[in-house]
């Protein structure tokens, strides 16, 4: 029996370390790890001032609506635009009685160095002129360090690759309730439009 004990103990210790490190074999990437580490939902959406494409300052809490929020940067070579295209599809597929009266879309750029109001306004126009209820925004009067902290606290991982302008980041969508709580997270790379819409509509019904 003693002979088995040492290998079994080694197996248990190794498995426990990996178990802990991946939150129970669930989070293998830094993106999902950061999301889980931010806490269970529903949880408070941290306060932050944003400025929209028209230069108007607002914050999520004051909207008193359901908000579907995502984070991008305009110099992104690829994935951010794909996510926004998906969001555009969702926007057009979702019931028109819901947007913008009950639900709003907010796309926030976290590239505070390169993106500005003019750029986000122009970028928004690519998605059409009649997209009421879809706001493009930038953080307002927040330093980079605080903004990074804000991103982490909601579960977004962003990493600027050295010697390039590429920022690799989480692409999760967050559904925030009128009570300013994150009630759902979606992974647009893995979940279908139909699934996301169904989940949103279900949340609105449960209201």
């Amino acid at each position, binding site marked *: 029996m003693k002979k088995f004990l040492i290998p079994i103990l080694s197996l248990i210790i190794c498995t426990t370390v990996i178990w802990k490190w991946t939150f129970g*074999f*669930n989070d*293998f990437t830094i993106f999902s790890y950061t999301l889980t580490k931010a806490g269970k939902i529903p949880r408070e959406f941290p306060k932050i001032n944003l400025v929209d494409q028209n230069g108007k300052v607002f914050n999520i809490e004051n909207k008193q609506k359901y908000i579907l929020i995502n984070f991008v940067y305009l110099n992104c070579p690829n994935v951010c635009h794909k996510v926004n295209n998906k969001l555009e599809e969702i926007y057009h597929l979702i019931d028109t009685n819901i947007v913008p009266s009950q639900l709003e879309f907010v796309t926030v750029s976290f590239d505070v160095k390169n993106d500005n109001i003019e750029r986000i306004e122009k970028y928004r126009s690519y998605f059409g002129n009649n997209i009421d209820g879809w706001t493009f925004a930038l953080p307002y009067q927040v330093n980079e360090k605080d903004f990074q902290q804000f991103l982490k606290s909601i579960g977004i991982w962003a990493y600027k690759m050295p010697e390039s302008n590429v920022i690799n980041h989480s692409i999760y969508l967050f559904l925030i309730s009128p009570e300013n709580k994150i009630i759902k997270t979606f992974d647009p*790379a*893995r979940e279908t439009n139909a699934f996301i819409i169904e989940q949103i509509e279900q949340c609105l019904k449960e209201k």
Partner: protein
Amino acid sequence: MIQIDSTEIKKQKKLALTWAITFLILFPVLITLGLLMRLRQGEITETGPSEFFSYMTLHGLGMAGILFTFAFAALWYLNSTRYVRLNLKFGWFLYFLILIGVVGLLYGTLIGKFGPGWYMLYPLPFKGTFWPAWATKVSVISLIILGVAWLLGILHMIYALAKQYGGLTNLLGWQYLGKKENITEIPSVVLITTISLIPGVFALIIGAAMLIMYLLQSFEPSLAFDPLMMKNMVMFFGHTLVNITMYCAVGWVYALLPEFTHREWKVNKAVVYSWNASFFFILFAYLHHLYMDFVQPTSLQYLGQVVSYSSAIPATGITMFGVIAQVYHAKMKWSIIPLMFLFGMAGWAIGGFAAVVDSTIALNSSLHNTLWVPAHFHTYMLMGVVLFIFGFLFYLFSGKDKEEKDGLGKAGFWIFVLGSYGFLLMFYLGGLNSVPRRYSNYSGLEIDHVRETGAHLAQCAALFVGVLLVGLILMYLSLFCKLIQQKVSTKESNS
């Protein structure tokens, strides 16, 4: 020749008996699952699809698993009591490791309803499933545990044999091909053990890679592997394992049949050439299961046919010839053991022929995905491997007189054979009537003839399974009596 003391033999026998009893418990359970499937296809019961496919998965994985495990355990017993010292503690360790794997698999399939079939064709275990994700994880991990145990066992046996017989070349019988007179003679079973098990090492490594990929996919559902590559991996692993199960079983026929015919069955050049040829053919024979995959390179499809034909001829031909030479005009008592071996050979030949038919591209286009496929592998498994195993079990459970009369056992045997061939015939007829395989029931088929034939044949097959089970019960009773007798005689000799 190595001398193995009687205490060691007794201990090894205890291990073999434990394997045997475990096999005898699991085997009828798995047959019952098969019966339930045929009853559903015959529209006699109303089993739901989720139950049906979890039964099918457990029946397939379980049968392939226990038949290979027992074939391996029997070779372990024969080699360890005659030719080589094998580590008994290690043998017990393997037993418990395999038991853990089996329990995991039972849990995953029966409780978790894991049901993509034994072949787990990608992306079946992940797309549109009716079972929870944990069932996939548990089943895949259990299979990995089984794979590790099998690999360890195979490596242990091959290494011990290589040490005993002076290296790999001797184990492969290459010394017989030269002109030297003083060569290391090897028993046939040793040659066949080596040739059967070495391809198993490579199949298990590729199988492990495939299972790890399944595990990764179960953690990351958005992964998308190439289904053709996955199918090649699954078939290379699964088909090779099933193939070597048969060869392992043939191995002990080479060792035990001469005890009844009283004729030597030695290794010679023809045996070496034929089995060495099989060594390579085993690895590529699986390709005939991919004819339907039009994206598979055409060259591989042709290779599949050539190799399937080639693999059937040398080992089967030479072995059949050997068996006939053994029994022809031999002054032997046709007790149940040689009878089972002889019928097992016939089953191998018939199933093998059906396999060759299916591996012919022109015929495969009509027969594949029909019941012809289960027909062929059930033939060489049920009427080949299973008969070899029961032959071995009767040998193991018998006392000193292995040729004694056994009316009960023989009656069971004939009923079992009758039931089995009846059951198999229904599969063949189903195949010839284009009844599709892997259907839980045929009610959705649009062609009336196929739908009705499929259901009728399934009803008849269920009936024959009943007959087969009666035979099995009689054989079990006979085995039980033999075991009791053996215990009594052991006690008497001890006192």
